Each structure stands twice: as C-alpha cells, then as structure tokens.
C-alpha cells in the first residue's frame, strides 16, 4: 500500500506554480523525508496530501487510494503543521479534550502518560509552554489519534538540539513500535540521516529525486544522505543558473 500517491499534481498560487508535475508513490511503513530548500514546495505538497489545499492540477490520494481530505483520509492521517499551531489560550487538558472530541479514536491514557513523562502539566495553558513542549504536545495529540500516517511539516525547525532529539525519538518510536508511516519535511538534512528510509528531493516546485535511501545512495555513489542531497541540489541549481 502507498500512503501517498500523486499523479501530475500541481498547485498554483496566482501565476507561480508552487508545485508542478509531481508524480510519486510513497510506500507505507517507512519514515519518508521530504527534502529541499526553502520555497521548494514541501509545505505545498504536504498541505495537498492532508487535504488542506485543493490541487490546481492532477490528483493526490492517501492511505491506499482515498482522496486527500475525504473523511476516511482525515480519519487515518494526523498532521502536525509548521510551527505546531495550538490554541494558545486553552490548557493542555482542554487541548486533549478538543482533540478527543474531534476524532473517532483517541488514546487518552497514552496522551496523559506521555505528557506525564515529558513533565508537561495538564493545567498549563498551551501558549505558556516552551517551544519544545508545544511541539511535543502537538505530536502527542497527533499520535494519540492512532493515525496510520503521521505527517509533519518542518517539525524541528524551531527547536533547540535537545528538544529536536527528543521529538525525533518520539517519532521514531511511533514508527517502529506502532508501525505508523511517517512523512516529514525538513531542510535540516542531518536530522534525517538517522531516521529516513525513503527520500523525496524537491526543488523549485518539482520532484528531483525519489526512492529508497539505500538505493539512492548506491546508485549515486554517495556515502550519506546529506552529501547526496547537497550534491543533487547544487547540480540542479547551477544547471538552472547556467541555462
């Protein structure tokens, strides 16, 4: 099963295409990393996959053929958006209540246990938590929904190194122990080295590279993900500049 399938997918804002001619299949059971420089179209692709935006061209389905944004798709996908938006004036307990009310499944004992582990008090307002705690709360709420696909948009961009490590550890635990498929975007390549099993490289709104990390490394004769991505991004940028 593919967790995300896109064919000829495109999104235009005004006259500029944020994403065009995007065709890919992201297999289930992996941590898939969406990599590319700022403005490459990563958020656009994720917003289309979770059904927040409507495609200008082509189509995208999730979780084995369900239209993005359909009730069945919403039910199986948990999305943590960039900067982990939460209702700042609601307490942590209220955020749990709201998320539980808005979803078919919600593992309340899991959510409480995890927040307890993290030392996040239930009575604290979400807006009063530190950046790392807010990100952890958003991730906990997403995982307590028991999703089949977890989508994270630049999850660690705003976090300090310790919070970053803790956050990724939680994601990896969910992926390995609970078998949740993960699709995450990042421009911090080093973070992805340890976690990503599948790579999608985007630049200037187009998919440049997609495949299993191991295959890609072997095919391109590179030792690390970072080198592979950097080399590829430099290449496309210079070729576009010289053209």
């Amino acid at each position, binding site marked *: 099963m593919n967790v995300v399938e896109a064919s000829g997918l495109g999104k235009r804002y005004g006259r500029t295409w944020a994403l065009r001619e995007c065709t890919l299949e992201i297999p289930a059971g992996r941590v898939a990393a969406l990599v590319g420089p700022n403005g490459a179209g990563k958020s656009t692709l994720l*917003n289309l996959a979770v059904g*927040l935006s409507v495609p200008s061209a082509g189509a995208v389905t999730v979780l*084995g053929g369900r239209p993005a944004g359909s009730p069945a798709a919403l039910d199986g996908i948990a*999305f943590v958006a960039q900067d982990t*938006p939460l209702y700042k004036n*609601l307490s942590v307990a209220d955020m749990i209540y709201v998320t539980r*009310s*808005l*979803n*078919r499944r919600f593992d309340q004992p899991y959510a409480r246990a995890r927040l307890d582990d993290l030392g996040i008090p239930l009575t604290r307002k979400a807006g009063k938590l530190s950046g790392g705690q807010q990100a952890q709360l958003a991730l906990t709420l997403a995982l307590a929904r028991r999703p089949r696909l977890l989508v994270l948009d630049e999850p660690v961009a705003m976090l300090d190194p310790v919070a970053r490590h803790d956050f990724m550890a939680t994601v990896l635990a969910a992926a390995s122990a609970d078998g949740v498929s993960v699709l995450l975007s990042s421009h911090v390549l080093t973070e992805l080295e340890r976690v990503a099993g599948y790579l999608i490289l985007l630049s200037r709104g187009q998919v440049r590279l997609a495949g299993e990390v191991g295959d890609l490394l072997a095919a391109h004769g590179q030792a690390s993900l970072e080198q592979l991505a950097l080399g590829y991004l430099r290449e496309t940028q210079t070729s576009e500049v010289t053209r």
Partner: protein
Amino acid sequence: MTARTVPARPSAEDTLRPLPWRRMAGVTWRQHRITLAGVAVLLGALAVWLWVTGTPLHHASAAAAACHPASSPACQNLEATFDASATSNVMSNKGPGGVLLQLVPALIGAFAGAPVLARELETGTFRYAWTQGFGRWRWALAKLVLLGVVLAAATAAFGCLVSWYFQPYSSTGHQAPGLFENSPFANLFGLREVTFPAWTLAAFAIGALAGMLIRRVVPAIVATLAVYAGLAFATAGFLREHYLTPLATTGTFNPGTSTAWVIGQWSAKDGRFAFAGNPPDSLINQFCSSLPPEKAAGPDGFTQCLAQHGYVQWTSYQPASRFWPFQWIEGGWLLVLSALLIAVTIWLVRRRAA
C-alpha cells in the same frame, strides 16, 4: 519510553459514519467561553441598568394611570413626575442610552463573529482544526450555528427587557418628546425582542464571513462594523418604510406621534400632483399672502389656506397596528440574510485553499 503495541485499526471501510454533532458543543464552549462571558457581562450590565432605571419609570407610570380623576391637580402632578423621569432618563433623547443600545448588536456581532474564523486563519490553528476527523465544513457549520443560536437567545431575552422598559411610553400614550421622533418605528425598532436578536445574528454572520475573507481579526472586526453600520442605516433610512405599502389619506392629517409613522406628505390639485412637503413660496405669495402671521404660524396654517384654493393634502403613513408585522418582516429577512452569509462562509471553508 514504553513500547506500544499496534492499536486496533479500523477496517478499511470508506463509508465512515460522521462524528456526532454534539461533540462540537464542548469544543465550541472551551474555545469561545471568554467571548461568551464577555457578551454575558455586557448584556448583564445593560440589563441591570435597564432594570434599575426602568423600575421607577414603571412606578411613576402606574401611579399616573391609577389616579382618579385624571384632571385633578394631584393627578397632574403624577403625570408631570412621570414626564420628568421619562425625559431626564438615560434612554430619553437627551441620554446616551438609546445610542449605546443601538451599538450592542454590532459589537456582539463583530467581536464574537469576526474572530471565529479569522483567528484560526491568522494564527494558523486552522491547520490543526481542519485536519481532524470531524471534517472542516462540519466543524465550521457546528461552531457558527451553535454560537449564533446562543447569541440570538441571549439577545432575544434582552430585547424583551428593552420592550418592558419602554412599555410605559408606548402603552399609556405618554410621549417623551423626541424619544420616538415622529414614529414608534424609527428609533428602538431594531432593539425589540424580534429585531434585536435578528440584527445580532446578522452582524455575527457578517463577522464570520468577513473573518473568512479577510483572514485577520482586527481588520475583520473593522469591516464588520462598517458593513453593519451601512446595512443598519440603509434599512432605517430607506428600506423599512417599504415593508408594506403605506396607507394614504387626505385632509389635514395629524394622527399623533404615537399612532402612526408618517412617511411623506404632498399636495394635489384637481387630481394632479402639485408639490411635496411644505408649500413653495410662490404659492403662498399667490394665495396666502393676506394670511395674518399669527394664523400662518399655527398648525397647518398654510395647508388650511391652500385647501380653500383647491389644494388637497395627502399623507402616506404606516399605522401603528403594523408594528408587529414590521418586526416579523425585518426579523425574517435578516434571518434569511444571516443563513445565506453563513452558507457562503461554509462554502468558502470547504473550498478555500489553505
């Protein structure tokens, strides 16, 4: 961290039963309790104020009405007491009360309606809310309908209190000068138990749509107040008098300020329109120049003079008996407008790319 077992997955049925609507009640309450508390405080404070100032008014009115014989000096005194308390009252033409009450639906609508979607869009929390299992358009519909119904119920109760407050004015024929200007319709018509919730709901729906379109809280509030003001002025100034075809009558018509709303006056001669409103100077010079000044200054002096020369004065008016039909007409179209605005808002939530 403890390893968690694979949770039971739902069978891959694609026809999921939607989550029950009632789940949005607690969500809406938690998210908007501060707004609703603010509305409660505002309406509560105004209600106490109306109660405190209205009780002596009712007592004075009841005392004047119960007094016999009405022409006795004691009764005249009671009448004078009522008139004095009615005119010196905050709600009279000299007081700020009436103007303040006119602002209430606009304030509630703007501050409760505009942020509902604008705050989500401004702070990015729509990315959270619209990707939950409840579904975005159902989420928006449940929220708007719940808040709209609560606000309408609260303002309907408040409208009853406003009606109670003005009952001595309207029922006994006592007229505080200028309070109703020339009609029982013009002022305070929008603050009664039907129109007050209707205007509040309309302002709320305008706010919700403005928030969805503008996507920022403060500009959406400003836009809501501006659109509401335009709609309220257009309604009071132009639309309301056309709800039902005005009645017309000839002759010197002075139905009294409490029994009709005079829309317009004009004069005709030999069945043809002559002039609207006051007679032009040329006619007065022609026919009524010999009129002694003290007579001309009296009520309808020139009208009587011109009547002797074949000019018939017509008056179009809305009788006081149409007060409640007018209330329901205004309440009705505002309700339809609000439903339309909310429908457009939901459609935008459904369609609009994030």
